[in-house]
């Protein structure tokens, strides 16, 4: 088999020297796996903080005239909640954490292409988070995570801090995108052709250009907002010749692709987990891989569907409506392919598999309401209401966060060498499903019947649905607490898992857990797609990986 020409010019053979000392090993590490875990821990801390803000929001809304916080404080709560969950939890978790930890090993690389850049990307993330939360000290932003001017021009001083924080995390995203794209294109092991890559790698390959290109538009928009707020240069203020819609176009030119940054990697994780536990090849590999790329490309051409009520020309509205609807086709292909993968399997319902299966159902709801909103006439009714809140949480919680939990239960043994507790995990899954659906299903109809989003008080006719949503949100929060208890307990006390407890076939499962700093003693050669469960593993050169008597590779001529 002619594989030598696919070898990344010797880059893949490069070995870093073993890191010594706590700081080089765990703080300023250049090892993609440690950086992945750093991202993960940081993002989980922000998940807790964003979750607490969410619960304050739900407590306030338990009564139509909630008195827990003032209107202004309420506005700060949801603005920082949204910003946290998008930029400090889901994007870093799916790209920085799972991306870093999993895909370089899956393609048989020893690290990402630019390890120092990778470290720099991570170290922009905690300061950005501290800046965002620091904005509470000077009056946090209040105009939602979208911060539309002119409202955001009137916002408290913390709004400028918000600009700077999101700008910083944006730079981090852009650099990560470049790093991942080069790694995926240049660092694959010999024989790891694009069409043999695991689907998680395809998902990252589709996501990386989004991170790289779309985030720059956000950076420009944020810089302009910051300059206008601090130095008075009018970009957005219509009374001085600016345009409020300019922000909306630039913001959504980023933030719509960002929705795909937040869901494509989760699709990739589901595409790994379902075949592993169904003991079946993923159904329609090529179509799933192709649909990720199609979604990423179309994702650049639909941003103005967030602006149907803003005053776009009818011709533009029609174009954006029809382009948006086409995204349902590749998304549908993925969902049907996962369902077909379940058919005829020998499904092992671990917690990871439960979350992956639940994901298919909850994400389908979020995807379908997305088609509703694509239709301009319906959007004219639903835009800016709780229907949007329901839709976006079905995508980002029922999709992205469910995917993150599935991935956590799946890859936890690879991170720590131990299982997470399955009993607690199943409690987590079922309570989360009950809590999550109970929280967000009522929001569909209260939105359509007349409750706008971003309100601290509301019409008493919506009290019962809001009250139920709040009660169920407590169940959801409790379920997430169970997850944290489980994870913290399992790091030290979990049942030892060995190197490949799930019988998974991708490369990361063929080396010890936790993975050594060099990943592979010898870079393997790849002969086929990983998803043929009836065949032997399609790799050569992995014989010594689990054998402690085979020495670690020696770095040659390292800087």
């Amino acid at each position, binding site marked *: 088999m002619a594989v030598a020409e696919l070898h990344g010019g010797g880059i893949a053979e490069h070995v870093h020297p073993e890191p010594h000392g706590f700081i080089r090993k765990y703080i300023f590490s250049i090892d993609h796996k440690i950086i992945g875990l750093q991202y993960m821990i940081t993002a989980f801390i922000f998940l807790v903080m964003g979750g607490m803000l969410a619960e304050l929001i739900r407590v306030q809304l338990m009564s139509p005239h909630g008195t827990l916080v003032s*209107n202004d404080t309420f*506005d700060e709560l949801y603005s920082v909640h949204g910003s946290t969950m998008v930029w400090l939890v889901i994007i870093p978790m799916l790209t920085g954490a799972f991306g870093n930890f999993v895909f370089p090993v899956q393609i048989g690389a020893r690290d990402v292409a630019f390890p120092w850049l990778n470290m720099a990307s991570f170290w922009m993330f905690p300061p950005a988070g501290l800046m965002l939360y620091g904005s509470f000290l000077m009056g946090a932003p*209040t105009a939602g995570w979208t911060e*539309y001017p*002119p*409202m955001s021009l009137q916002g408290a001083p913390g709004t400028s801090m918000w600009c700077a924080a999101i700008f910083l995390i944006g730079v981090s995203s852009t650099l990560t995108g470049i790093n991942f794209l080069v790694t995926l294109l240049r660092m694959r092991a010999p024989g790891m052709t694009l069409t043999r890559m695991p689907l998680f790698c395809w998902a990252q390959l589709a996501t990386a250009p989004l991170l790289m290109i779309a985030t720059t538009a956000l950076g420009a928009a944020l810089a302009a907002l910051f300059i206008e707020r601090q130095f008075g240069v009018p970009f957005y203020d*219509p009374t001085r010749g600016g*345009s*409020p*819609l300019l922000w909306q176009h630039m913001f959504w030119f980023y933030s719509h692709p960002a929705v795909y940054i937040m869901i494509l990697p989760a699709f990739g994780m589901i595409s790994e987990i379902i075949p592993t536990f169904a*003991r*079946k*090849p993923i*159904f329609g*590999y*090529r179509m799933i891989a192709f649909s990720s790329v199609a979604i990423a490309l179309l994702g650049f051409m639909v941003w103005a569907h967030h602006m149907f*009520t*803003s*005053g776009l020309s*009818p011709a533009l*509205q*029609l174009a954006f*409506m029809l382009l948006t*609807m086409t995204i*349902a*086709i590749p998304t*549908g*292909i993925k*969902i*049907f*392919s996962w*369902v*077909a993968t*379940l*058919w*005829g*399997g*020998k*499904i*092992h*319902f671990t917690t990871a598999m439960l979350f992956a*299966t639940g994901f*298919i159902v909850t994400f*389908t709801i979020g995807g*379908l309401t997305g*088609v*509703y909103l694509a*239709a301009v*006439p*319906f959007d*004219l*009714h639903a835009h*800016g209401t709780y229907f949007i809140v329901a839709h976006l949480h079905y995508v980002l919680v029922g999709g992205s966060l469910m995917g993150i939990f599935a991935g956590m239960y799946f890859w936890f043994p690879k991170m720590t060498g131990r299982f997470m507790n399955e009993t607690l995990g199943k409690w987590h899954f079922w309570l989360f499903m009950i809590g999550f659906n109970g929280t967000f299903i009522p929001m569909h109809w209260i939105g359509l*019947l*007349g409750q*706008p989003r971003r309100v*601290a*008080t509301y019409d008493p006719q919506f009290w019962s649905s809001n009250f139920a949503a709040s009660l169920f949100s407590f169940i959801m929060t409790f379920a997430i607490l169970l997850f944290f208890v489980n994870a913290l307990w399992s790091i030290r006390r979990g049942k030892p898992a060995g190197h490949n407890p799930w019988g998974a076939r991708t490369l990361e499962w063929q080396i010890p857990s936790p993975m050594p700093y060099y990943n592979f003693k010898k870079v393997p050669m790849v002969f086929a797609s990983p998803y043929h*469960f*009836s065949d032997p593993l399609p790799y050569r050169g992995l014989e010594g990986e689990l054998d402690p008597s085979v020495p670690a590779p020696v770095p040659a001529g390292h800087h």
Partner: protein
Amino acid sequence: MAVEHREPGAELDRQFWIVTALIAIASLAWIAFALAWDITKVLPEAVRPADLIDALFRFLLAASGVVFIVVTTYVVYFSLRYRRRADDPPDAIGIQIHDHHALELWWTIIPTVLLVALGIFSVRIFSGIYLEQPTNGLTVEAIGHQWYFDFRYPGINGVITDEMHLPLGVPVTLHVTSQDVIHSFWIPADRIKADMVPGLINTLHFTPTHPGTYKIICTEFCGTLHSDMNKQIMVVQDDASFKKWYEGWKVKNAHASNALPGTGVSSASVNLAGGSAANGQKLFTSKCIACHGTGAFDAKVVGPGLKNVLHDPAHPQLLNGTPANEDDVAKLIKSGFTGAMGHMPSEAENSLSDKDIADLVAFLNTYK
């Protein structure tokens, strides 16, 4: 189909087709429900094109419900049927199928057809909303402010009203804009909304079809009192009542062009006997002071300054052109107020009692 080995359960057997038949029955039942359901029972329709948008909603509900039933039922059915059993060998694997081109073609084609249908349907309704509405009727302008709406009827000489009254059956061209930040003008009963963007005029066309009173709600975050920007109404009424209202505003605007309109001021009077001015002062400094200063009328904080409010005949008239008197002030405090200056909370929102109001009026009376 690349099947590498076969085992029991690998065929699309009777059980599979029974489940599929159940899915078909459930789907048909759902479609029947979605098409028959009377949406106006939960949310009235006030205008055309609300009926068109509801028709689109039914189509979406029917089609998406079917997709959801198909996906969820198969997920649950396959999960139960193909779960690993206790007596399976640990290395048991599923049927090694990689793809099935015909099936993949179908699940690309069927959603595409549904989406094309949705696209055509949406475009038709879209043109019904934007392009086919008659424009020869009444023109109204709505202007967003923090945190209320003004309405201008070009026929009434450039002056504002605080409710939007519309005659039944007359096509309306509604221009919306804003004087400060972005608001969004939504009447749920109309099923349409338009953002009120400063410096930009957006236009909605519709024709009132059902008389009634309907809420107008701001759906774009616009600052502290965004949550309260839902107190104003659209009234659809017969032509005679509309003319009466319209002429009333013409007269009012001609004679009292400085009057600031109030809404829903209570007609229930408050017993003012025995009000304690001392207690009233306490209440004033803990509540009213947030929006009202103690200076002259022009010394505005949010609301006007209240010095001399009950004693200065030259004090601008607060309520519909009559000078302020004790009863009117009490009613105003009791019912709250939404007008050109914004929203003043009601007795309940301020957690006041009638006795508190009597105290406050007594205080304002001593305040010269």
